[in-house]
């Protein structure tokens, strides 16, 4: 099997619209979670979210998102926001990796797997209203291609001329992690030399918030103090905070990367997947599915749990989810560990299908910069022997970093990176 390394990173998230500024703010302990002012929330139980900084959203970023930096005005009609975020993050990752200078032949060996949890939910909502109020003749010919999940991968392939394997992952909140794992395997077996992989999401809209609220998944008790609402493992947590954005990684076959002298962030050494086979939204209380996902990631890399330095947890800030994952990590560590585990959702909220990809990027940057990001708002943690990196980032060297993602439907994925 061929070895796979990461050579490019790109990100749009509630902290900023590029990797380095997002990372700097994350390590600084800043929060991207704010009150929602861009649409009516008066009848919603949850009125906060992690929205990408832009003119319509109040966020203190140096890089407010302007879609026209990435797509023409005409093309913008053809894609819902989740696709635009993916194009923006892909542009950054591809430029970062240097594969934008690839030959036509190399582009035929370069593929894309970018997934999304929900895809064009705002477009589906708006079009349903148009259909009801104005009739079928007013439905846009761009409605279907603007909302289909695989059109993120499709538009990336068109924008950058990438003619290798092209598909999409849909595993709810595990999407981003599964996409990286699947893309790595395509390279491992030699079906492509380079894969653009990740996740994207833009479902922070009335129907999205209303839906997750109805499922009792969101935090509703801190609408007036939004920066304190996402508090993984804190005993007073009460649900997750929805967020949006995209994370994209360029994965590359090791020799291919070395031959062109590419910068290498780390190696993808393991990937684990499992299913709870239990419930549509609730995870197993003992975290057994999460445990088996991590165990498989370690087994596939021939790495033991005591070698892990950092875990970027799924850690959404829901009561059962955080508890199950904590039990699973305690079990995999077999009673003692020097590893640190944090949840960056405490700062940026839950990017659903983009979460795993954005968090994989943070895990790789913790390897590069020898610092692990904090779990914000963790004042009163659940009892555990695990270091949960409360409140402040921690300097420490990281050789092996694991990133977990778990999704509705009981799907679990873990990806293991190693310093290169």
């Amino acid at each position, binding site marked *: 099997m061929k070895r796979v390394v990461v050579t490019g990173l790109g990100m749009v998230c509630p902290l900023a619209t590029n990797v380095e500024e997002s990372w700097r703010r994350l390590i600084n302990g800043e929060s991207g979670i704010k009150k929602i002012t861009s649409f009516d929330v008066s009848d919603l139980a949850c009125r906060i979210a992690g929205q990408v900084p832009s003119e319509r959203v109040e966020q203190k970023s140096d890089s407010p998102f302007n879609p026209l930096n990435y797509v023409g005005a*005409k*093309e913008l009609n053809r894609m819902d926001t989740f696709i635009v975020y993916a194009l923006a993050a892909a542009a950054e990752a591809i430029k970062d990796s240097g594969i934008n200078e690839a030959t036509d032949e190399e582009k035929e060996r370069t593929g894309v797997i970018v997934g999304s949890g929900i895809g064009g939910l705002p477009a589906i909502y708006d079009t349903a209203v148009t259909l009801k109020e104005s009739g079928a*003749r007013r439905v*846009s*010919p761009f409605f279907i*291609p603007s909302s289909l999940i695989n059109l993120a991968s499709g538009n990336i392939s068109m924008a950058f001329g990438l003619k290798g394997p092209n598909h999409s992952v849909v595993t709810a909140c595990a999407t981003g992690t599964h996409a990286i794992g699947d893309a790595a395997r395509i390279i491992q077996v030699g079906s492509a030399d380079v894969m653009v992989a990740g996740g994207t999401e833009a479902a922070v809209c009335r129907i999205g918030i209303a839906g997750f609220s109805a499922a009792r998944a969101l935090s509703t008790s801190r609408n007036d103090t939004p920066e304190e609402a996402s508090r993984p493992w804190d005993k007073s947590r009460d649900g997750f905070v929805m967020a949006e954005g995209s994370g994209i990684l360029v994965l590359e076959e090791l020799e291919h990367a070395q031959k062109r002298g590419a910068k290498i962030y780390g190696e993808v050494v393991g990937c684990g997947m499992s299913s709870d086979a239990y419930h549509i939204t609730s995870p197993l209380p003992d975290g057994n599915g999460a445990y088996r996902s991590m165990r498989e990631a370690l087994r596939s890399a021939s790495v033991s749990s005591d070698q892990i330095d950092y875990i970027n947890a799924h850690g959404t800030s829901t009561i059962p989810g955080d508890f199950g994952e904590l039990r699973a990590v305690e079990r995999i560590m077999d009673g003692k560990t020097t590893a640190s585990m944090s949840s960056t959702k405490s700062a940026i909220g839950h990017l659903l299908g983009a979460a795993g990809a954005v968090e994989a990027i943070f895990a790789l940057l913790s390897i590069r910069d020898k610092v692990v990001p904090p779990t914000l708002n963790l004042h009163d943690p659940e009892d555990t022997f695990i270091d949960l990196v409360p409140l402040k980032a921690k300097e420490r060297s990281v050789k092996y970093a694991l990133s977990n993602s778990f999704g509705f439907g009981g799907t679990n994925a873990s990806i293991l990176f190693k310093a290169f």
Partner: protein
Amino acid sequence: MSDNIADKVKGIISEKLGVDIEKVKDEARFIDDFGADSLDTVDLVMALEEQFEIEISDKEGQEIQSVEDAISFIRSKCEK
């Protein structure tokens, strides 16, 4: 009145097909000159319907392939 229609039609074409308004000449064809595809032309016809509060059948819509076609079609509909 007629010039007003032509200006409005050209404005919609410019916006929907992403073409500078100066380039929207009477003889220009959507597919050959502006790189439009079949979805663009459907979208354009829908925008014309909405702006001029008229109904354009699929058959009529397919025959609108140039700026001139669009202007003369809208004139004939609006002047009836």
